[in-house]
């Protein structure tokens, strides 16, 4: 089957797609966008989080066919080549990145949270990111990073 969708603002297509392939597989193996990670393949860890038509989804749970005609934004599409997004900067500054494998999913999920709620409380942050597993950090620095990003947004950064 042939798949056409918009990814990070560009029209993309993939040929010869098997019915069982996930959107995550398409992104990583067919569209050369390996930023979204495959860590559980069952929607538990959030490492593959992307936007589909503006909604946060686990791309491992989206069948390729479901993405037909949709607009996808991945971690690679959140910033341009030269300037990181404030969320990305905050994760580095706060020390919220260690091995980095959960990071892209957390960046997209945090981006989504702050779009919906510019000044989330600690409880709201922990709840919003409860679907993103991390094995390195112990989460405390991730909380700091989200608060730092929220503060940067507030300052018009």
């Amino acid at each position, binding site marked *: 089957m042939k798949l056409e969708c918009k990814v990070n603002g560009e029209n993309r297509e993939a040929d*010869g797609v*098997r019915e*069982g*392939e996930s959107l995550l*597989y398409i992104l*990583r*193996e067919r569209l*050369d*966008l*390996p*930023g*979204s*990670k*495959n*860590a*559980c*393949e*069952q929607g*538990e*860890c959030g*490492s593959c989080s992307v936007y589909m038509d503006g909604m946060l989804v686990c791309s491992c749970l989206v069948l390729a066919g479901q993405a037909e005609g949709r607009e996808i934004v*991945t*971690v*690679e599409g*959140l*910033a341009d080549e030269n300037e*990181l997004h404030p969320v*990305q*900067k905050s*994760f*580095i*500054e706060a*020390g919220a*990145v*260690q*091995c*980095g*494998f*959960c*990071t*892209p999913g957390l*960046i997209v999920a945090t981006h989504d949270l702050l779009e919906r709620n510019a000044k989330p409380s600690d409880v709201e*942050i*922990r*709840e919003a*990111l*409860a*679907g*993103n*597993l*991390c*094995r*390195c*950090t*112990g*989460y*405390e*620095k*991730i*909380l700091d990073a989200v608060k730092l990003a929220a503060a940067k947004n507030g300052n018009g950064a």
Partner: protein
Amino acid sequence: MTATQAPGKSVGAPISRVEGHLKVRGAATYAYEHRLDEPAYLHPLQSTIANGRVAKIDASRAEAEPGVVAVLTHENAPKLEAVGDAELEILQNGEVGFRGQFIGAVIADTFEAARYAAGLVEIEYEERETDADFRPDRDDLYTPEQLNAGFEPDTSVGDVDGALASAAVKFDATYTTPREHNNPMEPHSSIAVWDEGELTLYESTQGVYWTQNTIAPLFGLDAEKVHVISPHVGGGFGSKGLPHANVVLAALAAMLVEGRPVKFALTRHMMFSVAGYRTPTIQRIRLGADAEGKLSAICNDVVEQTSKIKEFAEQTGTSARMMYDSSNIQTTHLLAALDVAVPSWLRAPGEAPGMFALESAMDEMAIECDLDPVEFRIMNEPEKDLESGLPFSSRGLVACLREGAERFGWDGRNPTPRSERDGRWLVGTGVASSVYPVFSMGGNAATIRADSDGKYVVEIGAADIGTGTWTTLGQIAADELGVSFEDVEMKIGDTKFPNASGAGGSSGITSWGSTLVEAARSLREKIEAEHGGNIPDEGVEASAKMPKNPHRKEYAMYAFGAHFVEARVDEDTGEVRVPRMTSVFAAGRIINAKTARSQFMGGMVMGLSAALHEESVLDTRFGHVVNHDFAEYHIPTNADVGELDISWIEEDDPYVNPMGSKGIGEIGIVGSAAAVANAVYHATGTRVRELPITPDKLIS
């Protein structure tokens, strides 16, 4: 902090990790993501029995499937050299030693084609009876020749039985810790490609040279014919230290399609059968003390599990040998060899389960002696390492306990269990000590090149598994070269760089850092002696090997720590929450305050996770882990973690290495599960000696 560091001032600064900008934009290249032309995809065939042999394997339907390139089985697999490692010597016959063992693979043009076709391979087994029941009363337990890291299995000082018989206060209890799986977020991944008799592996590994030195002999190759590339690794926690059979399977499959890269990433499910795990342990702790609470006997008798096909003996009892003062100390280790997957390293193998038992028992014994658990530990502080007889190079346990008690607000604690309540929550506090040895590993070398523009390139085949190596090694090199951090470029994670040990045993910075210091000194001397103190136009380089540390024979070297935990337990449901945790560490000089804090914190939360969540449940009939995914193998999420207060004491230790640093990757996990268990006891009056502390153990 990204500001320029003044020359000589990099070590200690909270410098942000240098590869962070790649990771936050999804541009860091992990093993599976190297861009190679026309890769083929591997999906493994795994045994569905735990003991027996493959009697018949029919791949004809799979081979006929569109997109399938080849099916690898023991009938067509290339021959491996017999190196005496049955975990790695896969597909050499049809024998099966544990459920989930690799018995073949499908290689196809796409991953989905390979996975689908793998289901079409028909396999018949001759099954033998499965023996996977881990019990301490088995009649076939045995003492291994040695434990992991070379420790003696059994030790005895003084007369433990006599001391216990005459002790005024006696304690005897058994603790159990479950099988646990490392579960780094990045599944174990490889891309293998053969070219004219040489193998290139793009790997997710804790040591490129560990992989090279393990894989090359299996394929009958000189080490330099195996190239291992691993710039970024999505966590390891020990499971990517000793290479597992997935690497061999990828390399065997790539031989069938010579010249074509073969990609293989384990699924999360597969990681529960082939990627190592922490053995379950059963530990009987006996303590004796005089009427004042001075310990007279310490004893840990350990029973743990290994696989029939390959022995791994965790050093669970070793911390009992050196932690507290006593004239009579005994430790023993017995193994049960079963039809199960091969155990391996998981963050602080030995110390993590061993200190759960010992530090829980110390809490119980403090209560028996009617002493505060902090003061009880302090009054049993040893003056030297009782195992080796050597003085400690530094021992900051008492300082950590005192500092932690102050920060946590321990003073004035009512020792009576169930003495504090907040609505339906029972509130308690607990303490536990932590320890981890300062290991050093050999075989390191480094090269540093200075260019005439004042920039330096430092090469060493070290690993960054999320620990911060890219950054911290640059800090060490910059200070020793006397230049600013920004003028040093690190090159690691590739066997094209000089030989290095791996990230394991919290030994990385000690081993690699000592080597860099030596290389930097050599380079400075060379510039001074041969070039009059100026870098010549063509540049100049120097190499060095890791020097021997003469103090190793003079001092016992350990890092220490203390954890303080508040636990709240719902009286009706048994739900446990940990709203705050204070930990203080004595780990020598801290190389990078930012990455160090993260390392400590990650360890603490992994201990919290061991206390409350993690348990791989084995079905003893079939020998497999039932809860083999993140839906059922629970690790904490953001919502499970409360306030974490982390600090470290200033510690000047001139003996451990030239930096004065101690490894910090593992000490955070050690003792933290015991601190949680001790707090849960204080909250509820229920002592849980079997991890994890799940609600059912509190409401029965």
